[in-house]
């Protein structure tokens, strides 16, 4: 007769799973419980039926529009961060002098923080900032280009804060691909372009998808920079700003919760789409790790 421990073991359950318990207890007590409280709150609006806050959001084009505005900022920013990280990380794989320095430099922007980035963008890209001064001094433009307090200001701030994350992740995924595969492709007659498009890129796609999701999540919840370097009443009125105003200007917590839930839902939809696309790529071992 099999020992009861043996039967559980067959299904993968044994004493080691206790190691999960602290983290689980933690997340359940301090996240799930408050989270579901917020969720229930969103169905208890100050007036109207359970779904009236959701209806309110979707029936008001100014509010509803924040979804599109946010996507219009977050999707390209996340995409650019990921796409820019690929060739750079690709260059960073081999051994070369100064590699450590360059990598450090690429990683350092994660320390900048939202406020310094915002202040810096306002100072640097502002109408009398160095950037415009150089353009004016070199006669490239006649009057200052406006790159802040609009879409571009927020976009740049998302690139500065998001790129280092994307770079670190892409570098790690890329280094997980066995370089021998590319060497094999070279001996089979593939030039670097086709080595990249036929071998490296397809193998990197799942990693890129994951990286995209993480940078997208960061970009989608953009808030302080949308206010500081964007146009928070107009083209950069992002959804988190709508939630923020509901919570902290109108003090309508149920409505704020409803918006936050919608926000989470939109994020999950995008992530689900990306992950669904990801599953169409090869996702197994790529030989580089282990």
């Amino acid at each position, binding site marked *: 007769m099999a020992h009861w421990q043996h039967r559980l073991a067959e299904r993968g359950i044994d004493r080691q799973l206790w190691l999960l318990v602290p983290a689980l207890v933690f997340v359940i*007590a301090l996240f799930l*419980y*408050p989270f579901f*409280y917020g969720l229930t709150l969103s169905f208890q609006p100050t007036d109207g039926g359970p779904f009236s806050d959701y209806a309110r959001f979707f029936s008001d084009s*100014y509010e509803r529009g924040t979804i599109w505005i946010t996507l219009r900022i977050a999707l390209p920013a996340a995409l650019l961060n990921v796409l820019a990280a690929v060739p750079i990380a690709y260059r960073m794989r081999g051994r070369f002098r100064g590699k450590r320095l360059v990598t450090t430099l690429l990683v350092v922007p994660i320390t900048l923080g939202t406020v310094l980035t915002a202040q810096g963008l*306002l100072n640097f890209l*502002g*109408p*009398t900032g160095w950037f415009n001064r150089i353009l004016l001094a070199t006669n490239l433009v006649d009057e*200052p280009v*406006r790159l802040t*307090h*609009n879409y571009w200001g927020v976009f740049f701030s998302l690139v500065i804060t998001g790129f280092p994350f994307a770079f670190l992740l892409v570098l790690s995924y890329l280094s997980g691909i066995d370089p021998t595969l590319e060497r094999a492709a070279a001996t089979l007659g593939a030039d670097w372009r086709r080595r990249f498009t036929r071998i490296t890129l397809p193998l990197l796609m799942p990693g890129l998808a994951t990286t995209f999701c993480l940078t997208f999540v960061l970009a989608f919840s953009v808030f302080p920079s949308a*206010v*500081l*370097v*964007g*146009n*928070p*009443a*107009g*083209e950069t*009125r992002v959804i988190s700003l709508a939630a*923020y105003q509901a*919570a*902290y*200007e*109108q*003090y309508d917590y149920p409505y704020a919760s409803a918006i936050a839930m919608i926000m989470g839902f939109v994020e999950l939809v995008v992530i689900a789409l990306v992950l669904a696309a990801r599953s169409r790529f090869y996702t197994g071992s790529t030989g580089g790790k282990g």
Partner: protein
Amino acid sequence: VGCGAPDSPGKSSGDTTGEVPERPGRAVTLNVLDVAGNLQLTQGMIDEFVSKNSGVISRVTYSKAPAPELAGKIKAQQGADRVDIGLVLTGVDGLAAGIEQGLWLDVLPKFQDRLGGMRNYLQPAAAMQQLAGNAGVTVTYYPSGPLLEYLPSRLPTPPTSAEALLAWAKGNPKKFQYARPANSGPGRTFLMGLPYILGDTNPKDPTAGWDKTWAFLKELGRYVDYYPSGTAETMKNLANGTAHLIVSTTGWDINPRVLGTVPKDARIATLDGFHWVTDAHYAVLPKGISTDTQAAVLALLAFMLTPEQQAKAYDEGYFYPGPAVKDVGLSSAPQKSQDAIREFGRPEYDALIAGNPTEVPLDAKSLVAAFNRWDREIGGGKVKQG
């Protein structure tokens, strides 16, 4: 019992509802939360009280935070029945938010007699107190604006009427600026002051009574390049020449020149028929603090409303003039204040304050509605214009 819903009643951590003694039974530790930048004016008063009355307040801590998150924090503490903030210093917005959420203790009329200084309020400060209802105690006051600010080197003769402003803006596109009202004191003062200047039907009703104001702002908006995210940036743009004319208040006129972020020679102008839209800072007591703390805070507030202490509110013109009570001369202010005001103050303020009517600002609900409409129609309108 485990986790109940956050708003279910918990166990009380001290007597919070009983009789409030004259003096706390035991010296209390007071945690002050400032969400209005008020400590710049009043921290000196509080420190002095504590040093003189260590039997009432043994220790004081200060924290500062942006206003909007205030209510959430107090709510969380009250939900758990563990309020540790004894005194909140806030502007109109935070005060009103707390009233609506039922966060504040009603100080009045119950403790009216303990706060004798309230009888000496300047008339407009008294009006601000009226606005506050029973929850807050006005501690500092200033007439605010709306004012226009400019550099004479760039703009020798500023417009002095609403029509002239519009015409000037039209003639000098992108050179007039004000910050998004929801994020800017001068911005919201300008917003609230326009109905008086333009003669709107109900200056207190942004939804139905501001037709001229909204039309004016929309028209003006055509010549505005963008609305910065804060007043500081409009000041910077004035200084660096990006903007030639911005909106301001008394405090924003004097203090940045003291700080050197705006050239000393900047001037102010007013529009014909303007009314001051006043502003004040309030002291409020969150519900759920012990009666000892209540007693201590009341004693502190009484102290802060004495003329000697009020004189400290002149500061460096930050909230010019600052004192909420009558007969507080600049000469009784600290020397540093006197020096700053002498150099950067404006003699014409006395006449302007005396010669123009004062109005209380919008109540919080109307203000949020005004912000909302401004965001949708004026600020957001910039998108459609391209």
